[in-house]
């Protein structure tokens, strides 16, 4: 009680005193500390958000890029299967039919569909709209049913990847622009000129002039760089010591003159372009770096190459039916905002695709070919089935090698191994192996596995087969499986084994009948995770030569094979956009497999794992 009487101890007094926590200094310090606290926490949230963003970015890239791969385009045309072209001998021998001129038949049907395409160059463009795959499938169809030789069949021809991308809108699409007035074409084929009453084309002209201004600006930038060169050499001349070689001075002066001349000519070109751009009206060339402009008039289509406010000149891609003046509203100005220089499909081809579309002869459907076909050099016929099958065989070999060996090694180390130096050495070894880069396993495979499987295991070269890949991946996943299995075996309480031993089981019986079954869910979980890792592994397989171009689906582990990740790597190397989409789609499939495997592992763990 006495203590409470003491004045220092009463709360009122304590707060009345100048406490260390109450000075302005202390308050500032406290504020700083709390600010640090907030900042620190924010950093943590920020880090997780960054990781999540990266994941989201990656997945959305893959999904976004893959979307185009799931549809393909077909052109439907009547194809005359003339007997003299396909089976000249007329005896319906499959060998002769195989050698038949199917591509000729397809080309003939294309020519028939576009009778007005007569120039050789245009015909080539036309033929390129159909994929080589069309020829192959037509051949197969005739081989299956030779009775259709001599008849005309409606055939769905696989379109080339350029046409396919255009149909899906990746290469721009035609948009109508407002135009008015009566348009009068002068001529119906070849180069034509079309005159219009209003200034309907001034917007095109404005675009062309903008581009001229851009070009002038580029010239001026270039001229500025030349001027910098002049300054550099001027400075060198200024700082030249008096006893310098006079030849050096003349050399520098010569360079300056050259720079000056280039600068002058660049500026003159820029001025000329600017003058052109700034004078209203006039006639200008439409370059291929600009959007493509078309005029649809009198049933024909004209690609505009020269433009003035009230007239255009161009090449007819589809001939006009007449040169009668077209009334206001009966003709159209069409624009593909993507420039011809920036895409693979040519302007003429887009026009013909539009003609096919009008006739209902072109359509896109779901791309089953991608899932069922083997690899190919052409994007539109390339599929992932061969590499998926290769992955399956490789994984099969890997599983049947690494699972029994891994589990056996884990059982030995956990249950039978005496505690001695050999055991320690094995343990350290396994831990080190788990950290060896996968590419080193590839080198091991190259040096050892290939040596044993190469060239002549009874006359079969097994170098780029699923067997070789499977062995290398098995060696690589062994440490993972052993470590996971050991953990699972260790988690089984010793009492269970002891009970088995107590009723008279031998050590081997106790382990195989009691410990192992209880450890199995954990072992399987670890194995599945190791398999998932192996499924995504690429580098060691590159090393042992599984990069081959495989056009046949492997039917056993002894056939040459590719695997999904290697396929992804190979396709990602091709510049075509259509291949980029297929790469992304293959990634999506691979990720799908991995998700399924991991889901199974999680399920196994949830369902069977016991906590003792």
């Amino acid at each position: 009680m006495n203590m409470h009487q003491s004045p220092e101890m009463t709360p009122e007094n304590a707060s009345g005193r100048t406490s260390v926590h109450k000075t302005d200094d202390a308050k500032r310090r406290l504020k700083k500390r709390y600010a640090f606290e907030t900042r620190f926490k924010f950093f943590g949230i920020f880090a997780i958000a960054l990781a999540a963003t990266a994941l989201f970015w990656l997945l959305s890239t893959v999904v976004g890029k893959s979307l185009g791969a799931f549809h393909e385009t077909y052109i439907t045309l009547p194809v005359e299967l003339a007997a003299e072209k396909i089976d000249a001998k007329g005896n319906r021998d499959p060998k002769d039919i195989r050698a038949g001129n199917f591509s000729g038949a397809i080309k003939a049907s294309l020519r028939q569909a576009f009778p007005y395409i007569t120039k050789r160059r245009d015909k080539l463009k036309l033929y390129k709209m159909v994929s080589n795959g069309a020829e192959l499938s037509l051949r197969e169809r005739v081989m299956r049913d030779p009775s259709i030789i001599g008849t005309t069949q409606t055939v769905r021809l696989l379109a080339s990847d350029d046409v396919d991308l255009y149909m899906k809108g990746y290469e721009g699409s035609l948009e109508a622009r407002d135009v008015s007035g009566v348009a009068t074409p002068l001529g119906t084929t070849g180069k034509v000129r079309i005159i219009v009453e209003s200034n309907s084309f001034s917007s095109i002209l404005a675009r062309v002039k903008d581009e001229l201004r851009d070009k002038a600006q580029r010239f001026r930038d270039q001229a500025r760089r030349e001027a910098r060169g002049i300054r550099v050499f001027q400075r060198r001349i200024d700082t030249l010591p008096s006893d310098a070689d006079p030849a050096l001075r003349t050399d520098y002066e010569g360079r300056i003159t050259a720079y000056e001349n280039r600068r002058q000519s660049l500026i003159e070109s820029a001025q000329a372009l600017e003058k052109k751009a700034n004078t209203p009206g006039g006639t200008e060339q439409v370059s291929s770096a600009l959007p493509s402009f078309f005029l649809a008039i009198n049933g024909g289509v004209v690609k505009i190459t020269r433009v003035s406010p009230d007239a255009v000149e161009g090449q007819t891609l589809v001939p006009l039916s007449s040169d009668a003046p077209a009334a206001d509203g009966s003709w159209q100005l069409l624009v593909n905002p993507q420039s011809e220089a920036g895409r693979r499909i040519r302007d003429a081809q887009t026009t013909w695709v539009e003609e096919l579309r009008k006739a209902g002869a072109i359509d896109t459907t779901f791309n089953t070919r991608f899932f069922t076909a083997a690899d190919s050099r052409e994007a539109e016929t390339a599929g992932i089935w061969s590499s998926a099958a290769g992955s399956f065989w490789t994984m099969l070999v890997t599983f049947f090698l690494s699972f029994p060996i891994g589990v056996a090694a884990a059982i030995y180390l956990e249950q039978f191994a005496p505690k001695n130096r050999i055991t320690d050495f094995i343990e350290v070894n396994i831990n080190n192996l788990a950290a060896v880069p996968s590419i080193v396993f590839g080198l091991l495979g190259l040096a050892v596995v290939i040596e044993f499987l190469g060239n002549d295991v009874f006359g079969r070269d097994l170098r780029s087969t699923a067997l070789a890949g499977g062995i290398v991946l098995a060696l690589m996943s062994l440490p993972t499986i052993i470590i996971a299995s050991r953990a699972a075996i260790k988690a089984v309480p010793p009492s269970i084994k002891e009970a088995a031993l107590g009723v008279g089981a031998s050590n081997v019986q106790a382990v195989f009948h009691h410990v192992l079954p209880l450890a199995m869910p954990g072992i399987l979980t670890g194995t599945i995770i190791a398999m998932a890792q192996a499924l995504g592994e690429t580098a060691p397989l590159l090393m042992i030569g599984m990069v081959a171009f495989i056009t046949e689906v492997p039917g056993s582990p002894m056939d040459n094979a590719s695997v999904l990740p290697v396929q992804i790597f190979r396709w990602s190397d091709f510049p075509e956009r259509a291949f980029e989409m297929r790469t992304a789609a293959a990634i999506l499939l691979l990720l799908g497999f991995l998700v399924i495997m991991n889901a199974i592992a999680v399920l196994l763990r949830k369902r069977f794992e016991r906590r003792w």
Partner: protein
Amino acid sequence: MIALAALTIVVLTGLAYVASGRQASALGAQAGVELHSRPTYHGLYAALVTGLVGFGVLIVATIGTRAVLDSQLRSALPEEAQTYTVLKQDRLISDAKAKGDGSIVSRPLDNDYRVARDALAETYVGYKRTREWGVAGLSVLLGLIALVLSYRRVSPQHRARNASEGIIRGTLFVSAGIAILTTIGILFSLIGETLKFFSGVPIYKFLFGTHWSPLSGVFEGQINPSTVGAIPLFAGTFMITIIAMLVAVPIGLMAAIYLSDYASKRVRSIAKPLLEILAGIPTVVYGFFAAITVAPVIRRTGEAMGLSVASESALAAGVVMGIMIIPFISSLSDDVINAVPQSLRDGSYGIGATKAETITKVVLPAALPGIVSAVLLGVSRAVGETMIVVMAAGQGANLTWNPLEAVTTVTVQIVALITGDAEAETAAGPAFALGFTLLCITLVLNMIALRVVQKYRLQYE
């Protein structure tokens, strides 16, 4: 033929199991006879012996006779081929084998060569048939003998259980030994080729030379020592690794700190799987991401700021590699941060520290050895990573400190050498030397990481 032999051995094994088991059962059914082992163990013993002998002979004979076949083929070279150079003889032998196997044969050099090849091919086919029959017959025969012998051993006194358990234990031991065999295989294959390489190239020129284009100076299969300076590769690997760690360490560490000390259960249950997904994505996918998405973004950003950025910049590869390593760092750090006892934190809170102060002044110092080892393991991961750099970093050996330029790495060059068009013999040397260097670097990093944890770990309790 060989497949048939394997199948026969499988059948023999099954037969051994059934026959010996039945025999034992029959014996056991007699009055007054007590079997030491139950009939299944007699069956198991016979099956194990038969299978092991059969398949063992099959595998050993296959591998063993291969060398014999090669040497016999060499001694059977036709007259006219005796004068050929060794290289030409090798080619002749492999061409003859290809012809004998009925696979694709390269065009013969000349008519003499064709004659010699065809003669040798015929010899080879003969040898091949003999070998196949020999191996298959021998393995089946010995399997059969094993079957008979083990069958005859069935008796009440035979300790079949102990014997088969012994075999099982032996198998388990051999399985554990495969890990060692793998290590020995790696070391021998790498060291062998590496030594061969260093017999032609002084080691210091490889380790300290600054000019790398190993296949440009090849003369008669000999590599020019002045073109195999690996410094540009080491520098490139170092730079990409540094960039990766600059991305991965702060993000991974902060994520681990937040998840272990701040996050609610719900946040943790979302964020942890998220990081695990990041860890499960194959590296080839990261490579695609780096090449298709990140590199163009970096280039556009750089150009907008007036910098010239290579399309295969070290920065793009490094950043994406960093993203790949984030989950690695975060999960390892998470473990060590969680291992710091709660009492340390409570003590710190007790004297009035804020959470952030507790973490930075108490938890992190205590967890530092573990974090350092996590970072070292991350570095070793980054150094050995292949696909991201193959797809997103450059090919040209470029000695530079500018992360916006293209550099190449050790792993990229190994892949380029092995998958390139060069003669396999010539390209193998530098590739294996690089592989060996890589192995040494990663092993040393791992060992340091292990030692750091062991030596500086604070022992609680």
